[in-house]
């Protein structure tokens, strides 16, 4: 029992310091900030200028894009670059499990993503005078941050090189921008695309955020939270397995 509690303590400490190191070293740097916040804002503005209407309607999409891009902004560097240099292996020499190392990497992305999302959410809420339900927002934003950071980790451990990881990450990113209701509502999509959109986690983030701003039902928000937790498990468990295979 004592050994187990010690192991938990070691792993929690490892997760915390690995995330802290990554945040300091990689995340709050111009390339990550540019991917995490400048890129989503520019995209949304581009869509708005192409088809000016109610900007308020684009806010959930903007927040969702910020979550998606900020959590995955530096993961290729954090995972593939460190794997290549051997510094990720160095972490495994410390009394920390492989799962804890990967959770540390995921947490780094989550914390950075949370900071970027907070800026965008509070900024757009104040500027546009919106009144979202903050409990609903938290119930959607937190699991979404974990989902997309885990998705990034999974895609990164699938490949070897940093550039391969960056390319692979772009595939779901752009697919989700167009199919998850970020700029075009899912309800107006053709039926086949609508079905496809519900296999994508970002759809639940966008829909959940829309409910948070427009006052949807709590049951609906909770069901989206649970679906997002399902996606989290779907991404993180194989990521741990694949990473452990890399060290064999």
């Amino acid at each position, binding site marked *: 029992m004592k050994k187990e509690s010690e192991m938990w303590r*070691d792993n929690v400490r490892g997760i915390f*310091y690995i995330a802290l190191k990554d945040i300091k070293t990689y995340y709050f740097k111009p390339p990550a900030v540019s991917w995490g916040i400048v890129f989503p804002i520019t995209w949304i503005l581009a869509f708005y200028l192409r088809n000016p209407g109610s900007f308020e309607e684009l806010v959930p999409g903007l927040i969702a894009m910020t979550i998606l891009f900020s959590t995955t902004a530096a993961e290729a560097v954090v995972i593939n670059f460190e794997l290549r240099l051997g*510094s990720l292996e160095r972490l495994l*020499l*410390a*009394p*920390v499990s492989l799962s804890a190392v990967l959770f540390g990497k995921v947490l780094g992305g989550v914390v950075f993503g949370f900071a970027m999302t907070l800026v965008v959410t509070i900024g757009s809420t104040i500027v546009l005078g919106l009144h979202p339900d903050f409990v609903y927002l938290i119930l959607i934003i937190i699991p979404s941050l974990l989902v997309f950071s885990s998705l990034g980790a999974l895609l990164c451990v699938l490949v070897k090189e940093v550039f391969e990881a960056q390319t692979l990450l772009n595939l779901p990113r752009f697919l989700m921008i167009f199919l998850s209701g970020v700029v075009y509502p899912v309800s107006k999509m053709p039926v086949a695309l609508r079905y496809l959109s519900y296999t994508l986690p970002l759809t639940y983030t966008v829909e959940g955020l829309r409910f948070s701003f427009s006052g949807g039902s709590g049951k609906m928000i909770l069901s989206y939270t649970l679906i997002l937790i399902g996606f989290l498990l779907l991404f993180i468990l194989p990521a741990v397995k694949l990473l452990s295979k890399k060290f064999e």
Partner: protein
Amino acid sequence: MNTDRIIQVSDLTKRYDEILAVDHISFDVNKGEVFGFLGPNGAGKTTTIRMLTGLSKPTDGKASIWGLDINSEIVQIKKHIGVVPEISNLYDELSAFDNLLFMAQLYGIPKSVRKKKAEELLKTFRLYERKDSLFRTFSRGMKRALTVAAALIHNPAVLFLDEPTVGLDVVAARSLRNLISNLRQQGITIFLTTHYLEEADLLCDRAAILVKGRILTIDNPQVLKAKTDKKSLEEAFMKITGLEPEVLAIEKGK
């Protein structure tokens, strides 16, 4: 558990598909000794270290460090061991001091001690003047020294050194060898793999000779030389491994 035997290995095996990298090896390492693990490239030295330090799971066999099983108690084991891998793999983007501090954090060294311990090690390894320089700006010798320092941050009882002097110039290699001797005097058990047999002769209390994943013999370097009637450990190694005729043929060809 025999308290003199810090590392106990029995029938340890590692197979990668068709390749048998480590083939049922057994040996013990005694407390406070420098144990050499010698062999040509591909002999299975690094694979053995990777299994003993938890980076790779054995296919078969058993091993324990401090009586703790490497399969089920590896996290506990990691608290007692320090590892210097073949490649100096600290963080390029962190300074020498921050690298040591980060390692201290991972090992759970109390906040009040971390800074002092990191500074002490930087002084011991004569890197204090460069404590704020990024790891990537260091020479190969300095990187090696800092990697050894990082492995010592938590005062391990056992230190694994995988080819510690590879790629170092004469001065840096000599300085590292002196350091290994000092660590041994402090009572740290050292598991050393090296290609340099002169180095092994100088440092090791006992050495295992490994070829194609199998241990051919284990003994004190002096005894190995006497048994083979050779003056140097290198010659004894050639004879034991059966590489002597190959070398002679190459020399005749010249």
